[in-house]
C-alpha cells in the first residue's frame, strides 16, 4: 500500500498545495485528536514529513516542502469558559479575533488580538497589541494538550494561575513554529474586561508614565509616531486626556502580521527598541517599521535584504528573517538546548524539517 492510501484509511485526504512558501503533497483535515495521532504515527513509520497549520496565513522562516499538510482548522471548538476563574479552553483551529469577541461578550478580556488561528497565535508567539504590559502569547498559556512528533498526546500545565508541577511543555512549544510538537488545545488566562479601551497618538510618553499604557507602538513609515493603548475606567481616561491634551479613540492598535513581502524582526533589549531600530535604518532599506515598546520586538518591512548581515553584526540582539526569499540564515542563532529538546520530542524529525536546523 502506498503511503497516501495508508493515510486515507485514517482520515480524509485532499489535494496538496503547490503554491506559496510552504508546499505539501497531500492535505489532511483531521476531525479528532485520535486522527491526528494516527496520521503522525503513519508519518513516523513511513518517514514522512508534516507541516501543521490552520489557516496557513503566517508562515515564518524559510520556504519548506513536506509530504503532509496537517490542517487543524476543524478542531475549532471552545471547550470551556470560566467567568469565575477567568480562563478559556479552546481547540487550536478557532480564530483568535472570534475568541476575543466571544470572551468580551461574557465580560472577559483576552489581552491578545491576532488575525489567525489560536494554534498559529501560540506557535508563532508573536507579540500582541497588549504585549507591552501583558507579555507574549506564551505568558497567557495556562495549560495545553499537545502531541509530540512521535504521536504521544500529553497534558501540560493546569487551569490555575500558578503552576510549578513539572516541565512547562505548554509554554515551551510557544514560538517553536511546530518544530517540537503540535498544540491541540489550550487554556488561556483572561482578565475582567475593562470599562474602556482607548488608543491615541502620544508624545513624550513612555511605559513608566503614570497613566500606564498597556501598549506603546512606535511606528515609522513616512514619519515617526507613537501610539498608546490604555485600559481603565471612563473617568480616568477622560482625566488623562485632559492632562495630556489628547483625544483618544475607542479600540486598540491592530497589528497586521500578513503585511509585507520581505520582513525581518529585531529581538533586542526591552525598552531599547527605538534606539536599536534606528541603527537598522543605517544598514537596511526599510519601507515601514513598528516596534512594540517593552517587548524587545520590532518588525521591519524591507525593500530588499541587502545589508542584513551587516546589521546582524552590529546590533545587540537577533535579526530574524520572518518572510521573503533570503539566501542566508533566516534565524541568526542556534541553541544546544533546542537540539536536545528536538531529540526528545520529535525523535524522527518529522515536524517541519528544514525550518530550523537545531
Amino acid at each position: 500500500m502506498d503511503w497516501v492510501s495508508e493515510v486515507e484509511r485514517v482520515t480524509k485526504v485532499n489535494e496538496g498545495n503547490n503554491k506559496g512558501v510552504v508546499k505539501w503533497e497531500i492535505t489532511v483535515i483531521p476531525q479528532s485528536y485520535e486522527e491526528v495521532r494516527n496520521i503522525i504515527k503513519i508519518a513516523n513509520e513511513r518517514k514522512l514529513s508534516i507541516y501543521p497549520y490552520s489557516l496557513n496565513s503566517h508562515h515564518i522562516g524559510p520556504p519548506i516542502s513536506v509530504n503532509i499538510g496537517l490542517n487543524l482548522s476543524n478542531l475549532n471548538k471552545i471547550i470551556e469558559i470560566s467567568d469565575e476563574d477567568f480562563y478559556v479552553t479552546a481547540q487550536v483551529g478557532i480564530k483568535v479575533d472570534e475568541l476575543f469577541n466571544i470572551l468580551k461578550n461574557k465580560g472577559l478580556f483576552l489581552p491578545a488580538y491576532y488575525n489567525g488561528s489560536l494554534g498559529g497565535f501560540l506557535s508563532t508567539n508573536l507579540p500582541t497589541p497588549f504585549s507591552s504590559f501583558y507579555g507574549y502569547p506564551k505568558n497567557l498559556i495556562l495549560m495545553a494538550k499537545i502531541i509530540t512528533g512521535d504521536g504521544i498526546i500529553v497534558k501540560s500545565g493546569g487551569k490555575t494561575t500558578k503552576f510549578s508541577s513539572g516541565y512547562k511543555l505548554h509554554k515551551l512549544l510557544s514560538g517553536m513554529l511546530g518544530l517540537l510538537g503540535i498544540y491541540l488545545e489550550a487554556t488561556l488566562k483572561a482578565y475582567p474586561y475593562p470599562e474602556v479601551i482607548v488608543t491615541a497618538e502620544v508624545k513624550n510618553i513612555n511605559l513608566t508614565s503614570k497613566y500606564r499604557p498597556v501598549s506603546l507602538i512606535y511606528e515609522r513609515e513616512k514619519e515617526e509616531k507613537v501610539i498608546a493603548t490604555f485600559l481603565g475606567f471612563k473617568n480616568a481616561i477622560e482625566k488623562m486626556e485632559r492632562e495630556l491634551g489628547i483625544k483618544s479613540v475607542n479600540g486598540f492598535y491592530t497589528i497586521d502580521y500578513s503585511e509585507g513581502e520581505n520582513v525581518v524582526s529585531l529581538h533586542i533589549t526591552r525598552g531599547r527598541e527605538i534606539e536599536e531600530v534606528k541603527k537598522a535604518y543605517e544598514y537596511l532599506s526599510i519601507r515601514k517599521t513598528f516596534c512594540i515598546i517593552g517587548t524587545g520586538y520590532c518588525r521591519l518591512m524591507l525593500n530588499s535584504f541587502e545589508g542584513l548581515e551587516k546589521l546582524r553584526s552590529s546590533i545587540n540582539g537577533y535579526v530574524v528573517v520572518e518572510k521573503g526569499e533570503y539566501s542566508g540564515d533566516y534565524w541568526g542563532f542556534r541553541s544546544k538546548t533546542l537540539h536536545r529538546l528536538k531529540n526528545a520530542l520529535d525523535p524522527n524529525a518529522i515536524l517541519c524539517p528544514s525550518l530550523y536546523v537545531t
Partner: protein
Amino acid sequence: MFIYFKLNSIIIIYKLRLKIMIVMLIDRLKEVVGEEWVITGEDTELYSYPAFIPLKVNPPIVVLPGSEEEVIELVNLLNENNVKYLVRGSGTSLSGSTTPTQGEVVISLTRLNKIYSFEGYEITVGPGLANFMINKFLSTSNLFYAPDPSSYVVSSIGGNISHDSGGMHTPKYGTTFDSVVKLKVLLPDGSVDEIGGSNFFDPTSIFVGAEGTLGIILRATLRLFPRPEKSKTLMASFNSIEDAARAVINVFRCGVTPAAMEFLDKNSIIAIENTQYKANYPITEAILLIELDGYSENVEEEEVRVIKAIRESKGEIHVPKDEEEKNRWWWGRKGAFPSFAYYSPAYLTLDANVPRSTLPTILKFIYDISKKYGLPVANSFHAGDGTLHPLIGFNPKNVDETINAIRAAEEITKFAIKLGGVPSGEHGIGIEKIKFMKLYYSEDDLEIMRRIRNSFDVKGLLNRCKLIPPSKGEICNVVNKIHSYLLEGDI
C-alpha cells in the same frame, strides 16, 4: 508500581565508590574553588536540607564556586568522575528539591550574586543573588522586579526560577516565569548555552520550574515593570470563611484585577497577634488584604468597586489610617508562617493551586482534615491566584507524627487535584509531592518528561529522584522511613 532498591548492593557499591572518589577529588575541588570554599565533615549538615524540614541528609561534600568558570570546571570534574551532584541557592526550597537524598555533592551558587547589567526594562543577575537585592538596587528607579515569594529577603533568583516562584503580586504581574527574558545555562554535559531574547525558538520555558534537573542557571536576564503611580491597601473582615472566599471571586467579577489579594483565617490572625508580627488585625473568622495599584484615577474607581463587592459579600471594609498601619498589616501577613510557632514547633506548608471558585469547598475540607488528624492548621495564602498555603503543625522529633502530618497534607493535595487544581503552584514538586505526579499526570505525560530530562542529563547525575517519579527499574536511594513514605506512600 516502581521498584525502589533499599540499601541494595548497587547503592552500597555507589556509596563506597563515592567515598573513595570524594577522597580522591577533594584536592582537585579545592584547586578549582579554593580551600575555604569546600566544606566537608560535620559542617555539611548546614546543607542537609532546605526549608522542607522533615528530611535531612548530609551531603558528602559542599562546594561554593565563586565564578561561572569555576562552576563549569566543577561540573566537568564531577562528570568525568561520574559523581552525582545538585545545585542549591539560599536553601529555601519548601519541596525539598535540594535535599541531597542521592548522596549528591552540593554546589552552592550563593557566591554568584552579581548584578551584571541594567538596561531598558531588563536586569541581568547571577543565580545566587537574593530576590530582595534587585528591588534594593532599583530603589531609585521607576522600575521594579515583580515576583516576591514570601522568602524574597533570602531566596535566590536561581532558586526562584527553578521553582517558578510566585508570591503576592501574581494576579497582576504573573510569576517568575513571566519575568524571565534570557538565561545562560550550563548543561549537564558541561556545555554552555545562552538562550532567550526572542519570541521564536526560545527554550527558556523548559528551565523555569525544572527544579535544577536539566542544567544550572549561571545568569538570568529579568523583565522589570514600571512602578505604579499609586498603591492602595484595603482590608476586609468576615464572620465566615465562606463569605471571604466568595468575596475573592466577586472582586474579580466587579471588573478589578488586584495587584495582590491575601487571605488570613482566624488561626493565622491569632498566631500573628501573639508574636512580633502583631498587626492589630480584627479577631474574626477571616480577613482579606487587598492591594490595588496603577494610575491613581483608575485605582480610585477600583476602590469603589471593591468596597461594593466586599459589602455585598457580607464583609466589613477597613482602610489604614496611615502608612505605618498599612505597612504593619502587610508585615503581619509576611509573618504568618513564622508566627505559626505559636501552635507548633514545626509545620508543613502546601501550595496546591486551585481555581478560585473552589476556595469555599477546599477550605472547609482543610478544617475537616485538621480535626481528623488532630493537628493544628492555619490558612494564610494568595487568594487572588488560588494558591493554598495550609500550615500543618507537627513535632519533627516524632517520626509517626511527622508521617501523620504528611498524610494530612496528602489528603488536602489530593482533594485540590480533584477540584481541578495542581499539586504545586509555586513551591515545586521536589521530594515532597513526587507521588502526586502519578495522580495528576498520565504515564505518557511522565514518560515525555523523563525523555526530556534524559536528553539533557544523559549520565543521570543531576538531582535525580526528584520532580519526576522514577521509571521502572530506575534506582533511587531511600534514606529513611519518611523518605520512603514520601516516595511510595499510598495515594
